[in-house]
């Protein structure tokens, strides 16, 4: 489990680094996406990250519970 999360974290860092180099070349895309319509897009981005985080957490709780249920079944 730990191994997998470390790996996905490294992948995320690598992707961010790649996005950063792209951003250096064109400057605009991220800026353009985040700054439209009075910068409300940025707020939507923040809300999106929080909701996505909550749902990912909910999924992980669900998975953990499934493991617990399986263990109970095997013992009982």
């Amino acid at each position, binding site marked *: 489990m730990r191994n997998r999360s470390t790996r996905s974290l490294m992948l995320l860092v690598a992707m961010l680094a790649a996005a950063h180099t792209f951003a250096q070349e064109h400057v605009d895309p991220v800026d353009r996406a985040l700054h439209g*319509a009075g910068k*409300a*897009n940025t*707020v*939507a981005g923040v*809300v*999106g990250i929080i*909701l*996505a985080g909550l*749902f990912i957490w*909910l*999924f992980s*709780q*669900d*998975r953990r*519970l*499934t493991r*617990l*249920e399986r263990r*109970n079944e095997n013992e009982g």
Partner: protein
Amino acid sequence: MKHWWWKLLAALLVIGASLAALLVPLAPGLTECVPSSLSPGTVTLSISGYNTRFDRNGPPAVGLTDGHGGIQADQVTVLGPTSVKAIFTIPADVGGRSAHVVVLPSSGERLVLFDAVWTGSGEGSLPDRWKFPEQAAAHGWEFPNRAILYETIRNLMFHVPMWFTMMVLQALSVGYSVAYLRSGELRTDLQAEKAVQVSLFFAALGLLTGSLWARATWGAWWTNDTKLNGAAVTTLIYLAYLVLRGSVADAKKRADLAAVYNIFAFVLMLVFIMVLPRLTDSLHPGNGGNPAFSQYDLDDDLRRVFYPAVLGWIMTGLWLFNLRVRMSRAFR
């Protein structure tokens, strides 16, 4: 993880609808008109807009209408993208009624500030010199700009789904209670209890978000509105359901009592939230005798976000219920 696809769908619907609720622009509209009363002669009205672009494509046409007649402004000066000045000649003997201010930008929108001015001390209506178009031009995807609500119309996609989810969970709970009374299986009693617990979580969110919204639109954290008090009483009735459960030690007896109480609670919830607000006046739309979800309350631009939001939140509520039931079984 079993049946993960509908959980993923719930997450995607909630996230997608929430982003759309925040990002779809609000239609242009009018917010203010000064002065608010007219006297015969030359009158200059300063009109403020929101999300408007009066500075584009030439000055808009500005008119006044009181339901009987209408007049057009003699001269319109654009002061900025959201500000315009209109000079009217008000005929003598006009007055005694309120009039709407209408602004027609060349882009085809129809902006109306309802009952914006009082026409003064005379007795006649405005002369029938000008009529504003019945239909506004087609526009892109935007939320309607309604007086009082303005940007808070976006709350529709967050506040209302809380109540829908609560009601679905309580309907589910009463279903399990009926199943318990028919079969006597304690398994269904546990499901009824967990559904009420999760429904109260959504009721709390609904009350809090509604209170905040009420402060911004109706001017008070709590009003004596039928639907507000009905929702509060319903929440108390369901809290009492949990208190009742906690006060009976014997599992079988507790299940019997709770199941019967739950049926009464559900009927009362329907009466307090769905029936009574429709019989009396309510600040909530769709009440006081009007059908909910009429075209006037909810147009297609709102529906496109509202229905996915409701569906997504209901599915999320069912997911939380599913987790609570499995958790209490796993830890028993």
